[in-house]
C-alpha cells in the first residue's frame, strides 16, 4: 500500500464513522451544526495524529502487557492539551462541545488506531494514517453536521439561506440518529459505484 492510499483510505473506503462505526458518541452528540462537527473533527485529528506518532516512536520500549494502559495515558495527555488550548483560545466552541472534549480519550477510533496500526507500523506510516483517519472523521462529522444544520436551521456554517426556522427535529436528538442512518446508506452506495 503506498502512502497516498494510506492517507486517503479514511475518507470513503474505511471511513471511521460510515463504515467502521467507530467514535459514534461525539459523531451524534456534537453535530448540531457543520462548524461544531468540524471543530470536534479537527480536535480528534490532532489527538489521533499525535498519539499515533508517539505510539509508533515508543512502541519498542513498552512491555506488551501494559500496552493498552500506556496508550491510554499517551492519548489522555494529548486530550488534556486540546482541552486546555481550546478553553483558552476558543471558549465558545469549548462550551458547545462540552463533555465531549474530555471524552475524546475514550473515542474507540483513537485507541483503535494506536492498537491496530501505530503499534505495528513505522513513524511515517503511522503519522499519515493518523492524519488520514482523523480528517476522514472530521469529514464525516462536518457532513453530518452540515446536513443537520441545513435541514434543522436552514443555514450552513452559520450563513442563513432561508427565512424562519427549519425542521427542528434535525437539530434535536432523533434527527442525529436518522440523518446518520441515511448517510450510511448513501456512503455505501458511493463505495459500490
Amino acid at each position, binding site marked *: 500500500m503506498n502512502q497516498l492510499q494510506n492517507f486517503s483510505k479514511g475518507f470513503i473506503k474505511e471511513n471511521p464513522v460510515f463504515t467502521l462505526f467507530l467514535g459514534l458518541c461525539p459523531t451524534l452528540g456534537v453535530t448540531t451544526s457543520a462548524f461544531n462537527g468540524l471543530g470536534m473533527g479537527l480536535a480528534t485529528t490532532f489527538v489521533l495524529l499525535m498519539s499515533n506518532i508517539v505510539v509508533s516512536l515508543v512502541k519498542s520500549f513498552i512491555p506488551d502487557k501494559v500496552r493498552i494502559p500506556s496508550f491510554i495515558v499517551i492519548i489522555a495527555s494529548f486530550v488534556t492539551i486540546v482541552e486546555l488550548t481550546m478553553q483558552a483560545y476558543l471558549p465558545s466552541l469549548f462550551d458547545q462541545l462540552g463533555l465531549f472534549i474530555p471524552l475524546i480519550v475514550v473515542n474507540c477510533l483513537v485507541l483503535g488506531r494506536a492498537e491496530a496500526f501505530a503499534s505495528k507500523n513505522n513513524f511515517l506510516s503511522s503519522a499519515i494514517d493518523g492524519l488520514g483517519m482523523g480528517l476522514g472523521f472530521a469529514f464525516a462529522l462536518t457532513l453530518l453536521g452540515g446536513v443537520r444544520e441545513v435541514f434543522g436551521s436552514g443555514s450552513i456554517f452559520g450563513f442563513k439561506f432561508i427565512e424562519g426556522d427549519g425542521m427542528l427535529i434535525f437539530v434535536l436528538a432523533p434527527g442525529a440518529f436518522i440523518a446518520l*442512518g441515511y448517510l450510511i446508506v448513501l456512503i455505501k452506495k458511493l463505495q459500490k459505484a
Partner: protein
Amino acid sequence: MEYVLIIISALFVNNIVLAQFLGICPFIGVSNKVGTSVGMTGAVTFVMVIATIVTYLIQNYVLVPLNITYMQTITFILVIASLVQLVEIILKKVSPPLYQALGIFLPLITTNCAVLGVAILAVQKDGFGLSHSVVFAIANALGFGLALIVFAGIRESLDLADVPKPLKGVPIAFIVAGLLAMAFMGFAGVVPN
C-alpha cells in the same frame, strides 16, 4: 424528593443514550439480543457506580485540595481502566457465576464513554454530594439499560421484518434509534431543570 427527580430525569428525560449520546457503541454493537443487553447492563451498572464513587472521592479529596483539576481527564480514565481490571479479577475469584455472566462485557467497558461521562458529569453538578452522585450513577446505568433492552427487543423483531435492502443492518438500527429518541422526547418537561 431530590433523589426521585434525579432518577426520573436520568431514566426518561435526559436518557444517557437517547438524549445525551453516551455509550452509543455498545448500544449499537451488543443490542442484537435481549439476553446480552441484560448482561451488559449489569456490568455497566456495577462499574459505573463504583467508578463514580471513586472518582468523586479523588476529585474532592485529591485533585481539588492540590489544585490540579486539569489532571481530571488523565486521572479519571486511569481509575476507570484499573477499576475494570480489578473488578474482573475480584469477580473471577469471588463469584464465578457472575463472572461467567458479565465477564465478556467487562473489557469493553473501559472504552464505554458512558462510564467516564457519568463520572465527569457527577463532579460537575453543583451541590452534588456523594449520595447524590451514587443515585445519579445508578439512575444513569438503569437509563442505559432501559434504552439498550428496549432497543434489543425492537431489533429482535426487526430481524423478521421486511426491511428495504439498502437499509438492512446498521442504517435501520440508527433510524429505529431515532424513532425511539423521538418517543423519549415525550418526557421532556416532566422534571424542572
